């Protein structure tokens, strides 16, 4: 049982939950995540440990409410409890000893970047964070990252900071030179675009992958990704990998496996919320999501 101590809205759909988890708070290292199981019937979902307060025995989860399970979590209020939080999982980030690192965060990926930037800063690596959002209200964790070094904030509509995508800002940073390593976390198209820049520039690039997971301990193989032609289980061998070697097409493709289910679950949730009785329970798409998902 893990009590929720605080829930703060960071953007239109991103929330920061502070949750009791003393053991994890004590031993987690940057780059690690947990599997959260809200209660009976709930899904097990992976979430990065965005921050910890070891003394208070709490961890912060920065969650983007995009589907049934994440919306259930972001609606929790202080005092609510989460049945299970398993972890810490995954290999900690391999941190360089010195030099200059650029941390690129797209959307909720910024929450994954934060603990990495904090750890880099703590060991004396110069950090430049490049984060972005559609518009001003979508920018998250800017202050926290400013505590770690320079921050370049980009908005697609130019309503705040630099107009344009994070990748444009990264291109400038790379052109300026002196970048030893890049950490990039965000939606697949963003990470793919990042390595499209860092690859030719021959800059080491670490990405954190988010395939669909179940157990998080290596027992299902659902999280398999291909890196350098070799199949890897992201939950135990990752989630961070050499971005220049990741098969992003396969990752994006596998992430879409349950699209029709996710849509149905969301619609059912909405219907329940507004008090409608839909009559029928959420049905699995008729011919397996497989066929259902085909164009």
């Amino acid at each position, binding site marked *: 049982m893990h009590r929720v101590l605080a829930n703060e809205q960071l953007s239109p759909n991103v929330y920061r939950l502070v949750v009791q988890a003393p053991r994890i708070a004590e031993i987690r290292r940057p780059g690690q995540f947990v599997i959260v199981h809200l209660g009976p019937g709930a899904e097990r979902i992976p979430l990065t440990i965005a921050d910890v307060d070891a003394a208070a025995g709490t961890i912060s989860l920065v969650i983007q409410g995009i589907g*049934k399970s994440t919306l259930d979590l972001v609606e929790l209020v202080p005092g609510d409890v989460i049945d299970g939080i398993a972890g810490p999982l995954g290999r900690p980030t391999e941190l360089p000893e010195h030099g200059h690192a650029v941390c690129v965060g797209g959307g909720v990926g910024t929450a994954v970047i934060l603990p990495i930037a904090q750890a880099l800063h703590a060991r004396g690596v110069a950090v430049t964070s490049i984060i972005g959002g559609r518009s001003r209200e979508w920018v998250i964790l800017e202050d926290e990252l400013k505590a770690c070094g320079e921050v370049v904030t980009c908005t697609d509509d130019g309503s705040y900071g630099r107009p344009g995508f994070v990748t444009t800002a990264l291109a400038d940073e790379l052109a300026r030179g002196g970048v030893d390593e890049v950490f990039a976390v965000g939606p697949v198209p963003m990470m793919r675009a990042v390595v499209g820049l860092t690859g030719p520039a021959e800059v080491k690039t670490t990405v954190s992958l988010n395939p669909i997971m179940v157990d998080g301990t290596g*027992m299902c193989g659902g999280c398999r990704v291909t890196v350098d032609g070799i199949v890897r289980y992201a939950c135990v061998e990752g989630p961070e990998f050499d971005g220049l070697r990741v098969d992003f097409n396969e990752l994006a493709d596998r992430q879409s496996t349950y699209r029709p289910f996710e849509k149905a679950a969301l619609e059912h949730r909405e219907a329940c919320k507004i008090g409608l009785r839909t009559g029928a329970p959420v049905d699995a798409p008729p011919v397996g999501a497989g066929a259902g998902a085909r164009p």
Partner: protein
Amino acid sequence: MTLDPEAPLTPKVPLTPKERMALKRVAMPEQDATARSANFGEVNLGLTEQLAILEAERCLQCPKPYCIDGCPVRVNIPQFIRFLRDGDIKSAAQSLLSDNALPCVTGRVCPQEIQCEKVCLRAKTGQSVAIGHLERFVADWGQRHAAEIAGSPAVRTGKTVAIVGSGPAGLTAAGELAKLGHEVTVFEAFHAAGGVLIYGIPEFRLPKDIVAAEVDRLIAQGVTIEANAIIGTTYTLPELREKFDAVFIAVGAGLPVFMNVPGENLKGVYSANEYLTRVNLMGAWTEGADTPVLHGQRVVVVGGGNVAMDAVRTARRLGAASATIVYRRGREELPARAEEVHHAEQEGVEFEYLAAPTEVLGDESRWVTSVRCVRMALGEPDESGRRRPEPIEGSEFDIPCDMLVVAIGTRSNPLLTQTAPDLEVTKWGYIVTDESGMTSMPGVFAGGDIVRGAATVILAMGDGKRAAAAIDAYLRGELPALPSAEPAAVA
């Protein structure tokens, strides 16, 4: 005298040996095959008391019972059957439970046909006594009357034992150690206890209520279950060893093995572990569960063991119009329990024998569309004594499918062992133990699949029981390997 299962039974009448021998093995009542291939209700419905007592009459009460030798944990089979025959089900249940901690489970999932029932004297001249069915009957009665047969609480020893993993090995050891008065904490990586019994074996073969009741019984005995605790990450083994007086590792062999053929990462390809975990542990077969699972229409399952049978029969229940097993040997060689194969056949599962996948094919959106297989021929016997399948060149053929489940085995998970440098493991990552079950780390014992490689429930339970006895001896200072807690002061 005639004994008709429908007629009221008068068990007091002693039967003559001839009458006894004339009794036919009772048939397990089961759900109709067509109906059950569309639901998750248990296939076997269980014997009625009348059928059970009738079947118990068939036991010859051999003075030298081979069945006991055939049982990996040496359950005193004739004894519990005799109590049952005499109508004393309570004593039957007590007798059974004193030998076997989870008889409700083993009565359903043991491969009796190659164990106790194989060596039953009656098998020589006809059909063996239905020992598994009788075990299940007595055990289910015992679970319903748990309060009546509970032993008195043990005197506390003040010793603490950590158990890692809550599968049959861990649960058995926990029960035995609690009975002996030790304070037991079970650490389980998942959010629920039971191991393969809850995430692997489906509801239609082993209802989850039954496993939950066993876990509740342990909790009532004072066992603490710490779920979501992964040893190797949440705590390391050396940490546990420091905090507890002894440790028992029973983490199973849970890592899925894939075929290593092209196309295995296409959408619609599952490991059996993932497929069954989604369906069973995460309840994806129930309405309104949050965890999704694909409902394939044409499903192929690769493998021939219990895991493969469970996956293919699950797919049928989730609506697959065709569900096919692809196995590289023949029907005779299937390692699955005979009953499961029989049930699968009844449920319309198709079997493609002597075939092995070479490639998984997909469409442009990377959904699986078929599996390419090569024909196999059985060659000379290999180390396991089974004839080795060899591919026939140029014999490739495709089986169309929209979902593929790989059920060709599992191996050890390095999560725990990699944080315990002092723990000796084989080159395959299985933990090495001595006869007592102790590992290379004093006070740390291991058993079940993580020692044997993927085996059976009953062997895992046997290991749990043996390790519990060894741990008890160790805690009382009677096990030779016991190093003194503190180095003896030299005068």
